[in-house]
């Protein structure tokens, strides 16, 4: 008893001294690579403490196979593992897929239709159970049993998936996911080769859970995972508390590294304004939500050492419904795209540092992206420079749509509403009779998808699921994602061009064998879709992270953003 107490005091003393030593020094450059011996020292020095994150609201169900929010995908990184995972790196490195629960990248056979994964041995779930091939098979079945949002989109290429989609309850994926217990392998059979399958296996919907996980949405009761941390408690109205997984032993620094803080909590319920205040006053370490516009100047000056700005592979855009007037007229759509002053929108969003004007679909830095911009003054430069109002007005004349009524549907959030207000202003200038209807942010995204609502033009955003051109072009402008009368028809413009669609299918096929060539094809498709102006692409946003004074080792992963567990608080 006595000894234990002394030990405790000693540990506290060491931590205090270490923390003191740390604070005397200059904070290390974030994201900089450090040699190995130093790293070990760091691991001891900074290990421990409680990191307090804040968010306006909870992200919904904690079930990793159902949740589809960045908020929890970000936190899942330390909680769950798939067969593969995105590398825990910064910049381009972070887009690389590395083996996680699989020992190695899969052995590919049958022209890419068969993938054989060897499962790592000695990994335990946070409840102490060993990871086996059974868990892997069950987890793939569970994707369908719980009707994961991407079950139809990402995983329909697995043999037997069609049956599972039709009757989720009795899903077996027979012949699709086959375990060999003796060899400790799992074989995945696809109906056709898929260039993006590695990405699809690396997102949280494909994580491996214990085989006995319930075949329904677990809601607020977190499932055990294999990651370095586990969920201790979750109350969507209060707090999500994450602690270390006692059964975790690091097996791959790239896929699932050990983390620094002992405890990570995310508190819910502050407004975004209050979140900034809390971080500024060191009452919280990081805010999930972007800081409100009127605080940007303040945090950019007074707290500039605590702010990290990173470009995103995402876009703000205004889809125009190509099937109903006035935007069933291509010239009218082009006129809108010519007329929009993207520099003004950038200003609205927070200035040049926080966004850059674009007019093509693939964001800068994305596979297949080649600079292109027809809707500007001096289009030869392939960069947006200024709006071309004369051209826009001429196009409007030709289109014969002057005087047509148009309703812009935006979200009721401050930024979306002000983008909408600006669009309305431009549309009126063009000669439309424009109205703006901001509607509840929660409904807006499904509302604008449904053709029954006859939405003409709307303001929305798209963030990548994984770094593949098809995630923007095929999903947002492909015929397959247009479903009339459905709330889930993410091709909001209703754009379906048979020729372009065929090219996209082709590019996806080519990508399996020749990714370089596929990227070239995507660049062409990008130009073709952009020319049709089914959506006015507005700008590429950047992400602002505002962290507390004590938070160190901030690293930004392009796939899952700020790597929470790789930062330290002492």
């Amino acid at each position, binding site marked *: 008893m006595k000894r234990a107490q002394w030990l405790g005091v000693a540990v506290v003393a060491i931590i205090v001294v270490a923390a003191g030593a740390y604070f005397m020094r200059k904070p290390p450059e974030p994201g900089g690579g450090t040699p190995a011996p130093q790293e070990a020292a760091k691991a001891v020095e900074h290990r421990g403490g409680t990191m307090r994150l804040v968010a306006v609201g909870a992200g919904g169900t904690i079930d990793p196979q159902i949740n589809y929010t960045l908020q929890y995908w970000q936190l899942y990184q330390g909680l769950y593992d798939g067969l593969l995972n995105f590398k825990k790196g910064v910049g381009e490195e972070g887009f690389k897929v590395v083996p996680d629960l699989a020992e190695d990248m899969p052995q590919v056979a049958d022209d890419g239709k068969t993938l054989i994964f060897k499962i790592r041995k000695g990994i335990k779930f946070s409840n102490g159970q060993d990871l086996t091939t059974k868990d892997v098979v069950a987890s793939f079945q569970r994707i369908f049993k719980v009707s994961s949002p991407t079950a139809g989109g990402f995983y329909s290429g697995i043999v037997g998936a069609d049956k599972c989609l039709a009757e989720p309850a009795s899903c077996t994926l027979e012949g699709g996911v086959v375990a060999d217990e003796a060899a400790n392998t799992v074989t995945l059979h696809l109906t056709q080769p898929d260039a993006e399958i590695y990405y699809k296996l690396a997102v949280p919907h494909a994580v491996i859970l214990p085989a006995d996980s319930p075949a329904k949405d677990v809601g607020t009761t977190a499932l055990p995972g294999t990651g370095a941390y586990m969920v201790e408690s979750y109350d969507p109205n209060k707090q999500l508390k994450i602690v270390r997984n006692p059964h975790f032993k690091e097996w791959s620094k790239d896929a699932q590294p050990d983390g620094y803080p002992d405890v990570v909590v995310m508190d819910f319920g502050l407004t975004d304004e209050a979140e900034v205040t809390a971080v500024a006053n060191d009452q919280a370490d990081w805010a999930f939500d972007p800081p409100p516009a009127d605080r940007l100047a303040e945090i950019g*000056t007074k707290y500039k050492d605590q*702010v990290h700005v990173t470009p995103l592979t995402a876009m703000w855009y205004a889809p125009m419904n190509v099937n109903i007037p006035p935007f069933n007229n291509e010239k009218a759509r082009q006129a809108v795209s010519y007329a929009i002053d993207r520099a003004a929108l950038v200003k609205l969003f927070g200035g040049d540092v926080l966004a850059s004007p674009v007019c093509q679909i693939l964001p800068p830095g994305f596979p297949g992206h080649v600079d292109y911009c027809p809707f500007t003054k001096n289009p030869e430069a392939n960069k947006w420079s200024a709006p071309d109002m004369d051209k826009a007005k001429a196009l409007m004349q030709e289109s014969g749509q002057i005087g047509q009524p148009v309703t812009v549907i935006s979200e009721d959030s401050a930024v979306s509403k002000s983008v909408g207000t600006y669009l309305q202003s431009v549309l009126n200038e063009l000669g439309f009779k424009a109205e703006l209807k901001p509607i509840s942010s929660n409904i807006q995204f499904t509302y604008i998808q449904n053709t029954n609502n006859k939405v003409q033009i709307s303001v929305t955003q798209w963030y990548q699921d994984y770094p593949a051109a098809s995630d923007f072009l095929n999903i947002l402008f492909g015929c397959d994602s247009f479903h009339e009368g459905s709330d889930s028809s993410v091709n909001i413009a209703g754009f379906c061009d048979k020729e372009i669609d065929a090219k996209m299918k082709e590019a996806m096929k080519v990508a399996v064998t020749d990714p370089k060539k596929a990227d070239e094809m995507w660049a062409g498709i990008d130009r073709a879709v952009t020319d049709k102006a089914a959506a006015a692409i507005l700008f590429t946003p950047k992400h602002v992270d505002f962290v507390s004074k004590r938070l160190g080792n901030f690293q930004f992963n392009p796939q899952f953003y700020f790597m929470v567990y790789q930062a330290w608080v002492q």
Partner: protein
Amino acid sequence: MAASETSIAGNDPRQADPVGAKRRPAAGPWATAFRKLVHDKAAMAALLVFILIVIGCSFASYYASHVAHTFPFSSNLQGKIVIDGVEQQIIAPSTEGLGLGSTPIGPTWKLQGYFLGADDQGRDVFARMLYGGLNSLWIASASTVICLLFAAVLGVTAGFFGGVADAAISRIMDVIWAFPIFLLAISLSIVLINSSINIGPIVIRAGSLWLPIFIIGIVYVPYVARPIRGQVLSLKNSEFVLAAVGLGVPSHRILWKDILPNVATTLIVFVPLMMALNMVTESALSFLSIGVQPPDASWGTIIQDGQNLLYSRPMVALAPGIAIAVTVLTLNVFGDGVRDALDPRSKLRIGGD
């Protein structure tokens, strides 16, 4: 104890008041009231300020086009303005530190433009306030009238007749009061995007101001109706009414002579209060796109716009708030004057007060 005190003088003061009767001039009560009102300096000053506000708002478009040379309904994100010979951007991007964010121009205190600064779309806040004033006043006053009218009828009915009428009215009031009005607003704002509501000959489109007027008017009916009901209940049991009943005075006469005048004074007290509450409520509804539609403005919507600029340009939200307070204040002081002039009992104080 209380009962014994009240039982001493058990009749209507109006009937037992020879002083009031004697002083009543030949010209009639209205003329007296008017004369009294005109002599009430505070009331007249308030009326003057109120009229000035209305006139100012009526000249909004003249001000915008001829004085400030701006069109406050379209975004002006890239605009520039010359102040004291220096050219300034209306929305100035931050240049210090990391250069995050941009700030709209602050108050110039010059009527030639951006007197109160710009909002986040680079629009002239002062010009928008002038435009918005009439909308706000119209919505607030119309909804106040509707609210008080309904509240008076329902409150008096429930209190005076009691029984089934009281129970039914009270429960309907409860339903209205407990009803999540924002759900209705969210729903209506979406329903009205593609369709309109027909109530008889009236067609309500999404932009119609009648929508917020009715919603606001009805939301607060219980708030006024219930106190009135309480008051009527208490009056009904007061000695002078009981005496009148005992004398066989018909109930419609009691209602007209004894109950309504008392209710009217309570209603007048509520006028400025409801005006203020309604202007604020209107802003919440406008936020859900019920009512004043962007880019059109009301004081409430400008407060909403200013909410997003609170930390950088507090004036945008402050100015319309002050405008609401001042306007309501003038109505309030004027209302007091009217009440004093009309209230039969206050005649007693003509000499002393």
